Structure formats: C-alpha cells, structure tokens
C-alpha cells in the first residue's frame, strides 16, 4: 500500500482546451493554412522522391484534370457519379446504418441498365427507354438495399457485414450476366452496348454531352438536402440514428424507418449505376463500380453529411484522380504518386479540424 510521490511540480508545457465557438473566418483561415502547408510538404516529398520540379507536377495535375474541354467534362462526369453515390449513402449513414454496400447496389443498378439497353434497345423509343432504365436501375439498387434492411429490422443482424457480402454477390451476378452478353464472343467483356443507334445512351442536353448527368444529380442533391432537413422522414431518420429508445418513445416505427431509408439509399446508389452505364461507359463489367462505393463513404463523412459540401469534396477527389493519370504519363511516374499528394492534402485537411475544435495553451510562467 506504499506509494511514491513522483508528481512533477511544473505545469505541462502545452495542453489542449476545447473551443466553445470559433468565428467562420478564423476556421477558414485555419483550413487555408492547412492547404498551403500540405502543398509545401507534398513539394518536399516530390523533390525528395522523384527529383521533379514540384510546381510542374502540380501544373501537370491541373492540366490533367481540367486542361482541355474534354478533360474538364470527364472530371465533371466522374464528380457527379461520386456525388450521387455519396448522396445515396447520406440517409443511411445519418440513421447510423453503416451501408458499405454501395458497390453492390451500383452494380445491380448497372446490370439492370445494361439488360434494358441490350434487350429493349430496339423495342422502345429512346426517351421511354431512358425512363424505364431510371426506374429499373433504382429498383435494382433498392432491392439490394432492402435485403440487409429487412434482416436488420427483424433480426438485428450486423448491417456492415451484410452489405459488404452483398457486394460480392452482386459481382457474381454481373459475371454471370457477362456470359450471356459477351460481345465479341470469347472476349469475356460486354463491349460498347448499342454503339450503332446509341440506344439507351444519355442524349446531349443543350449541346453538352454530359449535361443530363449534371442536371439529374443536381436535382437529387437538392432533393436529398430538403428531404433530410425539412421533411418528417428526415426528422425520423435523425432520431432513429441518435437513439432507437428515443425513437420508440416518440412513437416512431423504428423498423419501418430502417427499411424505408435503406430502400431510398439503395435506390439512389442503383441510379448511380445507370449514370455510369447509360451516361458514361455504355458497357458493364465487375469493375463498373470501381471502388467508388467506398470512396463515397469518405466523401459523405468529410462533408459531415452536408450535400453541398459533398460537391466540393467529390470534385476535389476526382480532380486529383484525373490529374494523376496525366502526371503518370507526363513524368513517367507511377499513378500512386498522386495518391501520395492526395493523402498529404487529406491529412492536413482532416488534421486541421483538431485546431478548429481545440486551442493549444502554452505554459505561461516558466518558473512556476
């Protein structure tokens, strides 16, 4: 029961204190400093590893992402796809239902789209075909979201594992479909569907190839913002996410909310599959989702589930991704070089949130 008194007699040099409030200007100032610091750090890394001029590498990234009209539009096209998926994840994540099955939901939506393009391409006029594709892709994603939701509501199964495993099921479904849709035979790929008549392709709007993609996702973004913030459903989702006990106390039917919300989440992710297949690649493979279902999780979290912040975050991520392709060929670097730069930027951006929430206090009197 003996004890040694080894207590230091001095105040700690630095300690943290939580900030109560911070002015908007100051918060953005901190973020700006973080971006500048990260660019400097990344420059040091670039010089150390590749011996390239970092300014040129940065310019290469910008050139790759928005250097030409076509490149800029590809960046926008990829941004709206990522945004769409993040928007789809938002209601589920707000409910604390960890839907990591967006990959599968996208693939199912994409498979439904491809099936309609192949089998109904000639039977329907293009406008009607597109509407049927929208509905079918959303429905396919919805089913993929509904299955784990039912099990969660009825048997309280773990949704993280369930949605993750459904991703692999969806991949197998697509592999199976490719057997039938192979073109040319023996290639084990589907090839461009309906290249001749562009049946089921998104038509250019106002002369812009990807105009429809942008319009549709913009409508979805505003819609989900309103749904989450002002509707009764949105309110129910928040309450269920915070505490199921409170939800029951409030007379909310928790099971129904879980199922309804996951149907919505899955449907939007399924629709993203249609954006990819019908609106961009016009083909399908097991890598159609391409990990975007997971990247969108980062987008949603970094934006703190604010749909408008998601626009910025997804644009940033896609910008870096597109830029990386350019610097890879221009400087003979590995594509991962850009991942390093993105990583450094993200590290500083997420890290600076600490300084926005906390303040450091230094020891005042050294001899205390």
């Amino acid at each position, binding site marked *: 029961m003996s004890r040694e008194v*080894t207590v230091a*007699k001095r105040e*700690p040099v630095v300690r943290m204190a939580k900030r*109560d409030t911070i002015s908007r200007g100051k918060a953005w100032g901190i973020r700006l400093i973080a971006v500048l610091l990260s660019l400097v750090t990344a420059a040091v890394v670039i010089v150390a590893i590749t011996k390239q001029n970092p300014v040129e590498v940065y310019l290469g990234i910008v050139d790759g992402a928005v250097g030409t009209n076509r490149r800029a539009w590809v960046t926008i096209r990829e941004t709206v796809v990522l945004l769409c998926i993040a928007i789809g994840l938002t209601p589920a994540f707000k409910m604390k239902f960890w839907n990591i099955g967006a990959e599968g939901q996208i693939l199912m939506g994409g498979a439904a789209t491809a099936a309609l393009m192949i089998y109904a391409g000639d039977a329907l006029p293009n406008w009607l075909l597109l509407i049927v594709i929208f509905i079918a892709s959303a429905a396919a994603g919805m089913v993929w979201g509904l299955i784990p939701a039912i099990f969660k509501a009825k048997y309280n199964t773990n949704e993280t594992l369930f949605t993750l495993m459904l991703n692999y099921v969806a991949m197998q479904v697509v592999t199976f479909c490719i057997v039938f849709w192979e073109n040319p035979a023996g290639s084990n790929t589907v090839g461009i569907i309906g290249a001749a008549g562009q049946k089921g392709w998104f038509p250019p709007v106002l002369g812009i190839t990807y105009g429809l993609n942008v319009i549709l996702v913009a409508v979805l973004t505003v819609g989900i913002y309103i749904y989450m913030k002002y509707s009764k459903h949105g309110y129910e989702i928040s309450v269920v996410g915070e*505490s199921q006990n409170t939800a*029951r106390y*409030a*007379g909310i039917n928790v099971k129904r909310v879980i199922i309804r919300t996951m149907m919505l989440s899955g449907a939007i992710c399924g629709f993203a599959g249609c954006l990819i297949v019908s609106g961009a690649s016009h083909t399908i493979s097991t890598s159609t989702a391409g990990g975007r279902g997971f990247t969108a999780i980062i987008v949603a979290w970094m934006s703190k589930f604010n749909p408008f912040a998601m626009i910025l975050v997804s644009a940033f991520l896609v910008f870096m991704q597109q830029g990386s392709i350019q610097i890879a060929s221009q400087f003979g670097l590995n594509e991962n070089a850009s991942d390093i730069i993105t990583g450094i930027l993200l590290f500083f951006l997420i890290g600076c949130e600490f300084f926005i929430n906390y303040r450091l206090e230094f020891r005042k009197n050294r001899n205390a």
Partner: protein
Amino acid sequence: MEPVNAIELKGVTKRFGEVTANDNVNLTVRKGEILSILGENGSGKTTLMNMLSGIYFPDEGEIRVNGETVTIRSPKDSFALGIGMIHQHFKLIQILTAAENIILGLPGSGRLNMKQVEREIAELTARYGFDLNPAQKIYDMSVSQKQTVEIVKVLYRGADILILDEPTAVLTPQETEKLFAVLRNMREAGKSIIIITHKLNEVLELSDRVAVLRKGKYIDTVPTKEATVESLTEMMVGEKVTLDIHRTKPEGVKKRIEMRGITCRNKEGLKVLKEASFDAYSGEILGVAGISGSGQKELLESVAGLQPIESGEILYYPPEGATEKISGMKAEDIKKLGITLSFVPEDRLGMGLVGSMDLTDNMMIRSYKEGGKFFADRKKPKKLAEEIVSQLEVVTPGVDTPVSRLSGGNVQKILVGREIAGNPTVLMVAYPVRGLDINSSYTIYNLLNEQKKKGVAVICVGEDLDVLLALCDKILVLNSGRVAGIVDARSTTKEELGLMMTGDGEEKKADE
C-alpha cells in the same frame, strides 16, 4: 505554527470557452474533517473536484496538498497525492469479485497472492466498519455494496483525502446511515472527506464544515453547527427562498389507470416486475418508492407502451367515454387513440430527448407528426421552446443550442416543460429532480402540484423519501419487482417506507 491543511485551493479558475466554471475559488480542507460542498446546478462543484482528481487542469491558481504546491496533470498524479474520488457512476467490472476489482490496475509482483490481498481488505473493512465480503462478485451486489467496493478501492490505494460525489443519491435511509457511520470512522482515523450533495439535512447531520459555491464563485465556508437549512439555501441561491411544498387535498378524484397483475422481463430474461397492480387517480400524486432497480423503470414504461408485457393488463379510464385496454399497445398506438400520456423517463438524454438536436427539434419529438404530410412543422415547436425557456428560466444561449450542451437541471426543465405542454391526462415522471438544485427542484414540485390541481393523474418515481412524503398523496413501494404496499403519504413515516423497500417479505420465497 498552524496545522497543515490537507488541501488548499488558491485563486483557482477554470474556463470552458466563454463560460467560467470556477472563478477564483479559495477552499481549504482540514485534516480529519468532513467538508460538504454545496451549490446549485452549474455552480462548479464537479469541475472543482475534477481538477483535484486530475481530470481537468486549472487555468489559473494553485493547489496545495499537505502544504506543498502541486501540479495534478492526470488521475495518476492525483492518486499519488493520496486523493481518491468516488464517482456517482461506479466503475467496476461485473464478473470480478470485490477483491479483484480493488487490486485492478495496481502494480505488484508477478505472483498474485489473493489470500493476502483479502486479508488486507478484511483489515481495512474491520477498521472502518465496512460490511464487505471480498470474494463476492460485483453482479451479485446491491448498489450500496458496490459503493462500498469503490470506497475500499481508494482506501486500499492509500488515499487520505476522499471525494464523494452525491453518494447517497441511490441509497435507502438505512444504507445512508451505515455509510455515514463509516465516514465518521474514517474521520476519526484522520482522513479528510469531501462530500458533494444536494440534500441539506444530510449536510447538517454529517459534516463539520460546509463550503458553498454559487455560479462558479466561492461564497464562504461555515461551521455546520452555525448553519441551518434556511441559511445554507440563502447562501447557495443568493436570496431567501421558501422551501414549502404546498400539498392540497385531492379533488375530483377519478380512476384513470388501472394496472392488474403485470409481469415483465428485462433483456436478460429476468423478471423485473412481478404481478404488479395499482390504480392511479386523477387529481392525485402517486409516489413510487424503492431501491433503484426494483422495477420502477418497467412500471412506468409498461404504462407508456415501451415495455413488452408478459402477463396482466393495463386499463385506461378516460374522463369521458369507454375504458380502453392499453396493455400490449405500442406508444404510437396509444397516441392514436387520442390518449395523452406524458412521460418523463429516467434516462433523459437516452430516451426523452436527443442530445445532439437543438431545443426546437426536441420539442418536435412529441408533435412532429402533426400538420402537413411531407414537411415537418418547426414553427410551433420553436414557439413552444421559447415559451418553456422563458417560463421555466432555462439557461441556454438560444433555442438553436443542442440540448447536450445544457446543464442537467436545464435539460430536465426542457423535458418536463415539453411533457406538461402536451396537456396530459396522465403524467408519469421518473426521478424528476435527480441532480437538480434546490431552486429547480421546487420549480418542478410546483409544476407537478399544478398538474394535480388541473385534474391530471400524476405518478412520480422518486428517491428522496422526505420529498415523496411531502409531495405525494399516496406512495407505492416496490421491493424487487413486487408491489410491497401502497400507503397514505400523510400518515406513513420514512422508516416504515425504508423497511418496506428492503424487507424480506414471505412472498420473496415464492420468487421465480
């Protein structure tokens, strides 16, 4: 030379952002004394103690322990200085024995000699008069026994200065007496004890001196001998307050709720309510007393439609119209019948409110279904929130502040305010003043009395028997899930209630 003080705080200040929780506090604790710290909610008692136990670090000022200036940077430093804190919520591992919990985390030789540890513990318990079996598992223990383990734990680690945060909140009168006897023994042995409490009669009974804080500022320390309930209240509040609960005779009494033979099980499958029956009448306050965890929660939740019922039935007698059977219904179904049951649950932020939401959104919990089909109406809830803030004097920066940022008393005011605003026919409240200061407590008692006068059937689960005796018309006593009896609050005594709460009735044998 004057005697060395156990603890001396000089000019201690702690700020959280804009809020100054402790403002230039000076406090001394002598060796071998029991010092009570009194103060309303948010007066900075807990913050002050947290600085002593190494959870917070003061912004300004100095702390002296046994005459020496010290720096307490972590709970480890605090322990090394011989300061031990017993928190309100126990931090014990259920499946270990008392002795195992006591030595948990202590350094020692590679081989554990449990016999010797138990001998040492037995020595300690004998010295101070504790009642403790070192080999007993925590999950087999009552709340009071767990508290004993916590106290022995800090003593075993060699603490000379003990801080107890509201130790009697969960104890019966008999258990409280036992605790006080032990604390007095510890004082005789030269230990210094700081006790935080809201119960003034306990302060007067137990402590040597009383220190009072008000809104973060240190007011004074007075010898208990010279203090009265009135003088202490005045120091705490800063003005004279009347501490009367004005109990009126019940009028227009009619049966509202009838519970018949309700049995229900908790998540682990244990019976928590055993054939409970009672009637609640309009214009009356029915108190519910019992050791915590005797089925109070389930009693209220089964009426509110939140607790699955195994057998029995609950009937609702509306002011007009036919009797409804509400057992087996969910909260939403009861609401659809147009029955307004208001319920202030024990777990305020886990059930009654959503901590991360603002005041307006928390008002909506009861009313969001009203109005249009798609959009939720936030105008009326906002107005209600503003009304509650001004009527109940809730301290908040605004109605857009998340509820979790408010102090416990203000959270409770918002919850009670919302539930009363629903114009209920039955109002159920669980521990309505737990953690609340004197002023807020009396505000709540007055609100309950007003509801009673309006003809509401009020059911109030409480822990302070003095208050239940002064407030209620009838008191239902629960004893491990059974209704031990329903007595007239005007004629019964605290001792009688205490016996009913703990008594081993013959019916106990018939359990399970």
